[in-house]
């Protein structure tokens, strides 16, 4: 029972409460339970990276417990800060804040057809979760990643020994900077459950729904005006995951057969999250431009307009912060993911610059990649 409570606390309550911090800086209409949880995971993993990597690189003994104790304190403090912010906002708005809604998913307003489609999606996701618990997936890389988590849990040491044999080894920089297995170990220690069980059984139960949450948020952007299309989009996404095993290399295959590995999280959570952030930031910008034009035409009071503009800018800052966190999460997942998201952002910046005819786009997106530059720099220094 205490294990279940621990999992709920560290995998749901803490990330959710942490998520209340960054969502304070994003537009109210975007805030809902799912977005708060996503934002919480992103910020939590970014913080985890900042705390764990220095411990891996510079602390010789008991580096796991030292890093985990610091992380635990920071995570709880952030969670408390989130609750305080939520409480204060509620007080300020006399309880009118709608942070904890389900977004604009209104069951009572749906047609029977749409309800059936949502039900089909839940069945599809439920089936994937059921299979992730009842089916074992063999993957050779588990001998590395899962054992890294287990070594941290059992020996209180991060990346000090070769997982294949247990022999001491020099720091394997490429893997040591991607500290996702250490987060799995942290959860395992907190719940007092074997890291292999946590990797193979618990992680899919968290990471699969989390990825679908990202897809759902993307569907909301893509079909903002045609809500009835969202479940169809989601069902097709789900089918692609189930039947995407055309080779062992696709991100769909990784998603359901190696869910607990950082690289799978990079392919199915981080990369879609980049798309979501870009949609949020730039689609929002397009709408903002239209609103601004309308406002200018109406020529309302200058001060009121300036106030609105300031508020919008502040809300946009939250999205940029989240994008930075996504970049940092890529580093937590895998060192190659850092290169991949940087390439993606580079290409997207170029394409968005062309369509928006705004040369500032690459500069802005480039700035969000600063953590990636630090990561690569550290990688290069340590690799020498």
């Amino acid at each position, binding site marked *: 029972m205490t294990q279940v409570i621990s999992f709920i606390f560290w995998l749901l309550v803490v990330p959710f409460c942490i998520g209340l911090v960054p969502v304070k800086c994003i537009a109210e209409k975007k805030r809902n339970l799912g977005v708060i949880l996503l934002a919480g995971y992103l910020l939590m993993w970014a913080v985890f990276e900042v705390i764990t990597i220095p411990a891996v690189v510079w602390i010789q003994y008991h580096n796991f417990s030292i890093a985990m104790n610091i992380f635990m304190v920071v995570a709880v403090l952030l969670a408390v800060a989130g609750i305080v912010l939520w409480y204060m906002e509620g007080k300020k708005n006399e309880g009118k804040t709608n942070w904890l809604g389900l977004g604009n998913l209104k069951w009572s307003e749906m047609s029977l057809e749409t309800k059936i489609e949502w039900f089909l999606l839940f069945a599809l996701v439920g089936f994937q979760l059921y299979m992730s618990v009842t089916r074992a997936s063999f993957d050779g890389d588990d001998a590395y990643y899962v054992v890294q988590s287990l070594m941290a849990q059992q020996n209180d040491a991060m990346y000090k020994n070769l997982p294949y044999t247990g022999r001491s080894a020099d720091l394997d920089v490429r893997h040591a900077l991607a500290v996702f297995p250490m987060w799995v170990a942290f959860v395992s220690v907190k719940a007092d459950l074997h890291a292999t069980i946590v990797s193979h059984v618990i992680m899919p139960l968290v990471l699969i729904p989390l990825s679908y949450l990202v897809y759902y948020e993307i569907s909301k952007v893509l079909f903002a005006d045609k809500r009835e299309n969202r479940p169809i989009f989601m069902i097709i996404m789900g089918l692609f995951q189930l*039947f995407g095993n055309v080779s062992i290399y696709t991100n769909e295959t990784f998603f359901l057969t190696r869910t607990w590995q950082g690289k799978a999280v990079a392919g199915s959570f981080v990369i879609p999250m980049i798309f979501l952030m870009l949609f949020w930031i730039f689609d929002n910008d397009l709408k903002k431009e239209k609103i601004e034009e309308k406002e200018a035409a109406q020529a309302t009071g200058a001060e009121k307009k300036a106030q609105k503009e300031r508020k919008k800018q502040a809300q946009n800052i939250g999205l940029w912060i989240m994008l930075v966190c996504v970049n940092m999460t890529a580093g937590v997942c895998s060192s190659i993911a850092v290169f991949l998201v940087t390439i993606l952002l580079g290409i997207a910046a170029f394409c968005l610059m062309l369509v928006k005819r705004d040369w500032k786009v690459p500069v802005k997106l480039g700035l969000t990649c600063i953590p990636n530059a630090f990561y690569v720099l550290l990688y290069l220094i340590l690799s020498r």
Partner: protein
Amino acid sequence: MWGIFLESLVIFQNYVGYHQNKFLFGIFLFFLLYLWLKEKNKVCRALFVYVPTVVLVLFFCPIFRKVFVALLDDAETYYRLLWLLQMSMVSAYGAVKLCSKHRKIGLVVMTIAVIACGSYVYQSEHITKAENWYHLPEEAVEVAELIDPEEGRVMAIVPSDLIYYIRQYSSRINMPYGREMLIARWDYYNDIYEAMEEAEVIETTSFVELTRSYGCNYVVLKKDREIEEPLTEYGFTLYAQTENYLIYQDMELSK
């Protein structure tokens, strides 16, 4: 440059399951083309049309591949660039856009197309019914449980079919070699691996010398593994056995 391009082509073919006659990528290409023609929203066009197209062009560009591989010092992971295509997302968006007026028919057609062109993930040979909560073979857990020390560490040499699993059960069990010996392209050499796995019949004298030089407390052998002379004549005792394995303990090291 042509050679590098061909390498990328092979990686691409392997990725999309070309040789297995899988055409899921064809669905993606169809909807990418559709979105090229029909997508009007600037941001959607940039992210779901231009980005995947540029990614595809870069993937096949020899100079890009050279730079990518040089930076990462790893050619094996180049296929992951194709993850940036987000095949499922672009296809799903294109499909919904195309069939928005006939959603039910669209969904049925897409379901049939994805099932016909794809490959059911749970049919993979790598997926089996879980035998325990660890999701490891039950017999591997049984062997690991038998030799897992209550405190400290032990060294155990195990047959190749257990190598992946033993340390997933307990990191207190060290091994003289691990997975690195099973990946042929990594090209490692290990004398005790040669003696244990490569020899047709294990030559007991030299094998025992090696297990002692590596400090192996336990030797796990398959029951049908041929060995010149029994280990019990060399200071080992039959510590335990499972359905398919014999576990020997080196009493000389235990002294």
